[in-house]
């Protein structure tokens, strides 16, 4: 079972890769010892979005469905966490609020996905229908300023957004600061390894086969629609996890984290990184979030112009993504070098078989 972390669907299966992986993980684990709490908090903020990026890589890169709806599910779970945390009260119930809100997002994905996938919506239309749903949700939430828009004690509050929910709490302990950082590292570790196992499993085999040729996959006896729906729900649920964590982190959420330009961000992270690989998505998204945050301090608009330019540059120059492209180039070079040393027997991908 555990051996599935390696396989044909993931780049980086050799010893060298896992040693590097362990080194990065170790650095991440000891980082709070050396950094001040402000930087740790900032780091946590970047990590929150990683789930949404990994989910998009699964749906788009592996499943071949171009969804523009990641912030739709981010918003549903983000608002869902807020509403549930307020209704159920603070304390340990916030953990239940987190889990429930992610399920609500996944359920919403199941409903929307059912109509689209069973309606044979694919390709570009999949993108624009999900985006239409996303923008409509943002518009709707923007118009809920009046006091009549509330769920229990939770006011939706229009453009100003919802606030007043507790952050994630266990007993008396708020999950904030360094604790939140470690929780996020653990969640990302589990998600990343879990997704690697998923895409290298028999289900993963079918998911990528459907991306390549849905009709052929159906002719091998697979109900293509069910696999697509499953992929869509898992990936969208991960966007939901980002949303719930985001609300808990800042104790507020506004419609602007759903609508434009927010909806474009996950697309840019994943397209730039290389949608077809989870590791590239993880690394690239983190780098972009870091860079974006650094520039945003000076001018948010400038940062967004840059993100737009990056997306344009990616599709024009390296459609498979920059991180994947660079990794492939490095891999080829490495193969040449080690090939010379070991006389032509140096495959990077020694996994499988």
């Amino acid at each position, binding site marked *: 079972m555990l051996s599935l972390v390696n396989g044909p669907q993931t780049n980086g299966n050799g010893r060298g890769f896992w040693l590097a992986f362990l080194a990065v993980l170790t650095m991440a684990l000891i980082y709070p010892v050396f950094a001040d709490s402000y930087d740790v908090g900032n780091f946590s903020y970047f990590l929150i979005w990683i789930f949404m990026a990994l989910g998009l890589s699964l749906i788009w890169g592996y499943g071949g469905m*171009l969804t523009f709806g990641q912030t739709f599910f981010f918003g549903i779970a983000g608002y869902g966490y807020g509403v549930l945390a307020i209704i159920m009260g603070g304390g340990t119930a916030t953990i239940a609020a987190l889990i429930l809100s992610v399920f609500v997002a996944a359920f919403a994905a199941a409903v*929307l996905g059912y*109509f*689209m996938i*069973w*309606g*044979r*919506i694919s*390709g*570009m*239309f999949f*993108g*624009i*229908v999900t*985006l*239409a*749903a996303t*923008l*409509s949700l943002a*518009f*709707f939430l923007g*118009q809920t300023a009046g006091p009549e828009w509330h769920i229990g004690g939770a006011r939706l509050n229009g453009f100003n957004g919802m606030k007043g929910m507790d952050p994630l709490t266990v007993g008396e302990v708020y999950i904030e600061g360094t604790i939140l950082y470690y929780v996020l590292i653990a969640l990302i570790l589990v998600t990343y390894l879990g997704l690697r196992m998923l895409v290298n499993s028999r289900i993963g085999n079918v998911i990528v086969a459907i991306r390549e040729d849905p009709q052929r996959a159906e002719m091998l006896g697979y109900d293509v629609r069910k696999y697509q729906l499953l992929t869509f729900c898992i990936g969208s649920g991960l966007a939901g996890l980002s949303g719930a964590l985001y609300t808990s982190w800042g104790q507020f959420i506004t419609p602007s984290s759903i*609508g*434009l*330009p927010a909806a*474009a961000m996950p*697309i*840019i992270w994943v*397209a730039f990184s290389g949608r077809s690989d989870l590791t590239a998505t993880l690394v690239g998204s983190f780098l972009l979030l870091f860079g974006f945050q650094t520039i945003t301090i000076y*001018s948010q*608009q*400038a940062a*967004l*112009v840059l*993100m*737009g*330019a*990056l*997306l*344009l*540059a*990616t*599709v*024009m120059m390296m*459609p498979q993504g920059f991180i994947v492209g660079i990794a492939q180039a490095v891999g080829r070079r490495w193969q040449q070098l080690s090939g010379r040393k070991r006389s032509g027997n140096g495959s990077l991908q020694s996994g499988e078989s």
Partner: protein
Amino acid sequence: MLSELFSLFYQFADVFAFLVLASAGLAIVFGMMGVINMAHGEFIMCGAYVTVGLVNLGVPLPVAQIVAAITAGLIGILIEILVVRRFYKRPLDSLLATWGLSLIVTQGMLIVVGSSIRGIGTPEGSFAVGDYTFSTYRMILFACALAVLVGIYVLFMRTRFGIIARATMQNAGMAQALGARTGRIYAVSFGIGAGLAGLCGALYAPTMTLIPTMGATFIVESFVTVVVGGANVLLGTAPAAMLLALVRMSLNASYGQIIGQIGMLFAVIAIIRILPEGFSSILARRGR
């Protein structure tokens, strides 16, 4: 009685005009090249800004609107040559490329012109039917929407350009072999699409606040109309807009704008479940 009926028609006409004007340009680009232009909203924004800028300089409104539409069209041709034409074989990438463009333009505009400029106000003038009064400008918008539909029909069915364009739409390779300059046809078609988007912005400029992100106000409606209409602009757009306008109008009237918008989206999702290829597919089948 008559005035109530007219009031219903007026509300329908208002939504219908919005859907047709917002989506016509997008539909033409999609129908001809199979590309969804994610920067469609920015061409609308461009039309609106040029109109308001010219009116503030003293140009009469109708002239400003026409100039604005042409400006957007010319910029469209430029964008087609510089960016879009590389992506006809990769339609999904064209979506991303134009989305990148859209981000650059909206955020760039926010830096350059700031968040809002002085508006020009809706042209006055109203008329009464029974006890109700109605805005004349809204009726002009409805007339413009009809004119756009008729114009598209005439352009594609009755002109030489239209015949070549339709041949290209059917089979680009064959049209090229027969001497059609498909590259130029695509550029002109994209320009027409952008021009119609600019026209939409120009026509609605007097009725709304201008901000660089205003394209987003139109884009949902234009997307859903194209999705419901399907690939054939000539057959799909008008009935799609009519159906959606009916749904929207009845929901608006009973439950208000918010439910109207959400309800329309639900209608769209239900329609694609039943008619995956949109209206043009059944109409095209009927025609065969």
